[in-house]
């Protein structure tokens, strides 16, 4: 039998629920403009059981026990959250690419920068226009006869403009690249912040659940009622997740303890209160190859250790049979196994970087275990930045030759290491210039660290030697012990490894990003420079040039004399010295004799008179310059056979900086008319345009475009075609990214609206709810009055007949 006052109790509870529902309506309305807020709802259910009873009763007397509020829930849809985040990542990915590549397009501006005045005069300053201006100047030089010296200077100036323009483009590409790096650093910083905040929120969520009591416990663990609990903290977490999704592909799992386990780039980055941190790496031998590694804030990743727990291998790959675990709950010393097993098709590549670092590094940007694509970081702004920064395209990277650059640079480094080892063994065997060049070569080729050590010789003098280390592996010791590197590639892999010969120690892992990023366009520009320069210079070779004998011989003799005076301090390499000797010996009558550093240069004229110009045979070198007036008339000029001119130059050892280092050749700068009179013997041929036509021929010929590794484009181009090709390729890619961006934006808007439909507050709906709950509240109040009247009747007016 129910209590007489049960009805009142029932209405009391109902009044509370109505009151709370109105509160939640108020809360929803209050937060209608709050970013990340998820609308809330009081979950109400009918009371259909007897408290304290061991079994469910549904007898008539226990019916009508009213309603009960079980909790305040949020209205979210995980599927829609995932969709929104996926498209958000895609949108930001294409947005970043579009933005950066637009900046590159601005550099090669081909339409807006190309204008004509009202008379139709070409005022263009676009790449194509500037290339065309050199052609135009050559044409004028070829035709115009007014003043050839002026035309020669005009042509030289056009060449200088082109070179300056290309230098500027290369420089501007660097600037865009630097902006991307800067943006990337900021992005990584922000991502690290997000990871940290998420770890922190996880801790608060967990504590809140315990405090709020939404927990069901078991023997080993406990489980929360995660539909309720700390809703505002969850909102905050979702807000962070939404932001994180802009940077990369995100997966989220809500754990039994109410915390969120977050995967970024397919790798766990937030687990419970623990979180990972990202760092950028720059990898040689391709110095621009940018990657990211994840490390833990608290040694999450266990290094390879021996039974005693000592780190036994800080480098190289970890073995496949070792468990790599992430410590999730530190206080229980429990290791959660990461899906990181190497060599078994797992998801990550684990690298142990150094003992000092004590953490394993998780590379999320490269391929792994033979999987070419997709890489872990599949989408988002970070992927976009990475692709834009590293992307070298597939243009020159055919399957077989993809890592030829690595192989080539490692070969260069090996040779330089051997030479530097020889120097360490015998410092007198190399000049200062040679050693500096060797150091530069090693640094540029593999990015090794070179340190100088000073030793004391037996005679008390100081000897400088060099130690070379790469990733803490000593490749060259001061005693001359040297280790050589080797490159290992597999056709199915999209990375190559650089290891130490014999030991197999890994010192580098090289990935090739085949997106069409900044590097792709830099390569195109460099290929343009290389092809144009090689072709122009090739057309200007094999001339028999008339020179002033004294001036020519003296210029090289002076260099040899200076070298004689102190070979060790000279900046000249052995090859430089040999080149000087070869150039001197091109003059009939010149002989160079003597050992290294003791060179003697002599000249014998037509009258058999011998002049000793440089005498390094004795102590100290002496220089007696040739005097033109002392020479017989026939000897005052000489013919230097087979002279090759470099009209344009670039550093052939550094293809990547070809455009940046491109210059107009020294000879051309000195003598602008060289392009019409390369032999310096132009009697009766002032209007000769045969040589100029050679250069115009380069403009008019379909050339094979090569990169530095011998890869070539399938189609041939004239220089002007190729400039157009670069601009059009770039324009099309930006256009493609714009299209992708717009399509993705539409999809994202749709999913955002869908999600908004579920989670956001509707004023109408809340108004109706408010009226509803108000009426409900009034009805319950009315019910209480009715109950009161009933009880009043029962208590005060029942059984009182006769009392009055």
């Amino acid at each position: 039998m129910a209590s007489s006052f049960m009805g009142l109790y029932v209405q009391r509870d109902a009044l509370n629920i109505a009151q709370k529902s109105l509160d939640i309506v108020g809360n929803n309305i209050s937060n209608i403009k709050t970013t990340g807020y998820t609308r809330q709802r009081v979950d109400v259910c009918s009371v259909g059981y007897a408290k304290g009873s061991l079994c469910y009763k549904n007898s008539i007397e226990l019916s009508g026990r009213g309603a009960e509020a079980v909790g305040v829930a949020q209205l979210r849809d995980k599927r829609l959250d995932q969709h929104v985040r996926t498209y958000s990542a895609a949108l930001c990915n294409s947005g970043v690419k579009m933005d950066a590549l637009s900046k590159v397009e601005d550099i090669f501006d081909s339409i807006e920068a190309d204008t004509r005045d009202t008379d139709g005069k070409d005022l263009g300053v676009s790449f194509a226009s500037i290339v065309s201006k050199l052609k135009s100047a050559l044409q004028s030089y070829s035709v115009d006869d007014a003043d050839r010296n002026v035309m020669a200077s005009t042509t030289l100036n056009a060449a200088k403009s082109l070179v300056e323009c290309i230098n500027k483009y290369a420089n501007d590409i660097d600037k865009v690249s630097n902006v991307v790096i800067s943006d990337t650093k900021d992005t990584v910083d922000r991502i690290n912040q997000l990871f940290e905040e998420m770890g922190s929120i996880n801790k608060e969520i967990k504590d809140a659940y315990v405090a709020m009591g939404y927990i069901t416990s078991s023997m080993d663990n406990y489980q929360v009622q995660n539909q309720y609990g700390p809703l505002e903290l969850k909102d905050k977490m979702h807000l962070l997740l939404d932001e994180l999704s802009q940077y990369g592909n995100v997966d989220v799992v809500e754990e039994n303890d109410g915390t969120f386990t977050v995967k970024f780039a397919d790798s766990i980055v937030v687990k419970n209160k623990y979180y990972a941190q990202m760092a950028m790496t720059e990898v040689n031998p391709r110095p621009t190859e940018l990657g990211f590694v994840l490390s833990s804030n608290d040694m999450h990743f266990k290094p390879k250790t021996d039974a005693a727990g000592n780190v036994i291998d800080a480098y190289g790959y970890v073995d496949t049979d070792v468990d790599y675990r992430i410590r999730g709950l530190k206080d229980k010393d429990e290791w959660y196994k990461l899906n990181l097993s190497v060599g078994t098709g797992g998801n990550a590549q684990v690298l142990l970087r150094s003992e000092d670092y004590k953490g394993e590094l998780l590379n999320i940007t490269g391929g792994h275990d033979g999987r070419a694509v997709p890489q872990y970081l599949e989408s988002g702004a970070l992927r976009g930045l990475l692709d834009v920064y590293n992307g070298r395209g597939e243009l020159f990277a055919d399957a077989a030759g993809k890592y030829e650059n690595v192989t080539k640079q490692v070969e260069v480094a090996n040779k330089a290491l051997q030479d530097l080892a020889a120097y360490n063994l015998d410092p007198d065997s190399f000049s200062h210039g040679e050693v500096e060049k060797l150091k530069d070569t090693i640094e540029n080729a593999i990015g090794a660290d070179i340190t100088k050590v000073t030793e004391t010789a037996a005679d008390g003098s100081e000897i400088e030697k060099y130690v070379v280390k790469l990733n803490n592996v000593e490749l060259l010791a001061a005693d001359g012990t040297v280790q050589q590197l080797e490159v290992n590639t597999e056709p199915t892999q999209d990375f190559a490894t650089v290891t130490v010969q014999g030991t197999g120690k890994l010192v580098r892992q090289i990935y090739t990003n085949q997106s069409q990023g900044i590097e792709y366009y830099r390569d195109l520009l460099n290929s343009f420079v290389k092809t144009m320069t090689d072709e122009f210079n090739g057309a200007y070779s094999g001339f028999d040039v008339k020179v002033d004998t004294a001036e020519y011989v003296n210029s090289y003799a002076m260099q040899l004399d200076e070298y004689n005076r102190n070979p060790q301090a000279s900046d000249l390499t052995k090859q430089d010295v040999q080149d000087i000797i070869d150039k001197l010996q091109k003059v009939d009558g010149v002989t160079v004799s003597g050992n290294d550093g003791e060179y003697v240069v002599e000249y014998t004229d037509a009258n058999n008179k011998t002049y000793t110009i440089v005498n390094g045979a004795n102590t100290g070198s002496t220089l007696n310059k040739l005097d033109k007036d002392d020479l017989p008339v026939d000897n005052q000029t000489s013919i230097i056979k087979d002279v090759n001119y470099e009209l344009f130059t670039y550093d052939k050892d550094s293809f990547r900086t070809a455009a940046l280092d491109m210059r107009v050749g020294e000879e051309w700068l000195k003598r602008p008319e060289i392009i019409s009179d390369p032999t310096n013997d132009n009697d009766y041929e002032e209007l000769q345009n045969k040589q100029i036509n050679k250069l115009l021929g380069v403009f008019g010929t379909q050339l094979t475009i090569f990169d530095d590794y011998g890869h070539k484009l399938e189609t041939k181009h004239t220089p002007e075609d190729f400039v157009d090709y670069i601009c059009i390729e770039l324009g099309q890619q930006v256009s493609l990214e714009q299209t992708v961006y717009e399509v993705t934006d539409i999809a994202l808007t749709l999913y955002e609206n869908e999600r908004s439909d579920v989670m956001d507050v509707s004023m109408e709906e809340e108004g109706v709810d408010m009226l509803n709950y108000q009426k409900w509240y009034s009805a319950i109040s009315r019910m209480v009055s009715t109950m009161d009247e009933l009880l009043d009747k029962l208590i005060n007016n029942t059984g009182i007949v006769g009392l009055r």
Partner: protein
Amino acid sequence: MMRVTDKMTTGTFLTNNRRLRSNLLGSYTRIMTQRRFNRVSEDSINGAKAMIIRRDLRDLDIYDSNLSSIKQLFTEAESSLTQIAHKNYISVEEQLVAATNGTHDQMEMNIFATTLDQIADSMVNTLNADFSERQIFGGTNNSTPPFEIGRYCVTDENDTVIYPPYFYDYYVGAEATQNQIADANEALAKLAEHNTNGTSAEEKDFVSMTQTLKKLNVEVGVNEDGKYTATVTTDNGKGDKITILLPDGTHQDFVYGEGENPVIAEVEAAAANITANGAVSKADAEALAKLNLTAEVDDAGTVTFKDSKGIIVNMAGGLPAEIKDKVPKEITVSVGTETVSKQIENEVKSQFEMVDVPRSITYNGIPVDFDVMHKMTDANGNKFDIQIGSKYTIKKLNDDFTWSEGTEIAPNVEAAVKGRNNSLIFPGSDPVYVDIGIGMKYDKDNDYKVDPQTALDTAFNGAAIMGCGLDDDGYSKNLVQLVLDAARALRNGDQSTPNAIIDKANKANNNVIIEIANIGSKQNSIEFYEQRNEDSRYNLRERQNIVEGTDMETEISYWESLRAAYEASLKVGTQVIPNSIFNYI
């Protein structure tokens, strides 16, 4: 039924409004710039087309500029050649016909010769005219006037003169001197006659007479009355002067004389000394050496004289006649009893040879008659080929009658192949190919050589146009050289050569006329290409407008509709927070 949340409403409004505004800006930019796109990425297909059109337009600029430059050059060349082929040539023909009609004495023929020389000079001036600082007919030579008239000879590697072919035939020292003396005496007589009778001769005649006298070191003066005087310095070593023409017309002639070379007496004296002394002194040996003789004295004191070939010379009766005859004579020029010039025959010969070297025209430093494709005549009248690979030296006679150092040339096979119109490869005769937009092609595998069919050669090889080398009759093929040769022949009293030259000159002039026709033909081509380029430019601009240009009517309509939509959107914006149920409860 979808729930429409406030966030959705405001978000959708803002997104759409932003898009409208972006489109409005884009349309505005297209109207203002009148370009449909400003970057390739905005319209990659048309962007690619636009770049090609722009390149074509730039190329047209180049072709137009090239055509414009060479058109003026061709006009100038045509004008110069017309001057020569018509005006100058007609004068030449008239002079030659008149001079060879057999009615003129030498004096008149000399006047014809002078006139012809002047016409030749005039033609050279025309040919050397530059246009905009370019030597029109110099081929690739632009540093010096291509044609020059002067006195030249060409020697081979043995320093033997091989050009002009009659170099040695014509000049004999003594004869030359006698001729010169005769000319001088004639000049003196004319001047004397002028002093006496006041005969009026033309100014140029006086100049000529003065120059003739100067060759014999005669100083000619004119007094206030216009009377001439002439003095000459004697050979007595004191610098004494003799007056050979007085204002009153009194004058003395030069007299030619031949004597024995003093070396003969010196050698004979030395031989006598040696014979007498039985020994050879240094001085005696040096004296003998002047005639390439030596003396030997054996142990018995017998003296033997030998010539350069080791043949014994009998000096008992003095120098044998066969040797004596070969020794150049001493030539004297005297006035009355005073000797004014005494020279050994060789020296005299040398001096007068130079004076009489014929005038030749050179092209870029080489006489136009020097021709690898024709046989030359050597000093002995033998015909021979210019040897490919041999070296020849071209020397010019300076004003002071000395030879220049000479320019060495070495005709080679390549040069001979390159030569045009059977000409020697004159320096600067390479073609100058210019791209005029007919698709200039280069052979990349052959040192980027231009395909001649695809370009226009703008070089005018003066030697090829005016003619060079000799014909089968030994006459020059060069019009100017023919005129010079005719003038020279007339001076020498030769009428047959000028007569023959009338036909030869006509033939040479025909070549010039053909060249004028060629130039005219090329000018027509140039005009055709100019017109074609103009058409191409028009078409390209039209195409550029289609590809790049904004269709203003459509764009403005579009902009208007966007503007209306944007304004409507803004109006909607004021209502974007709509009334809710709260407005009614």
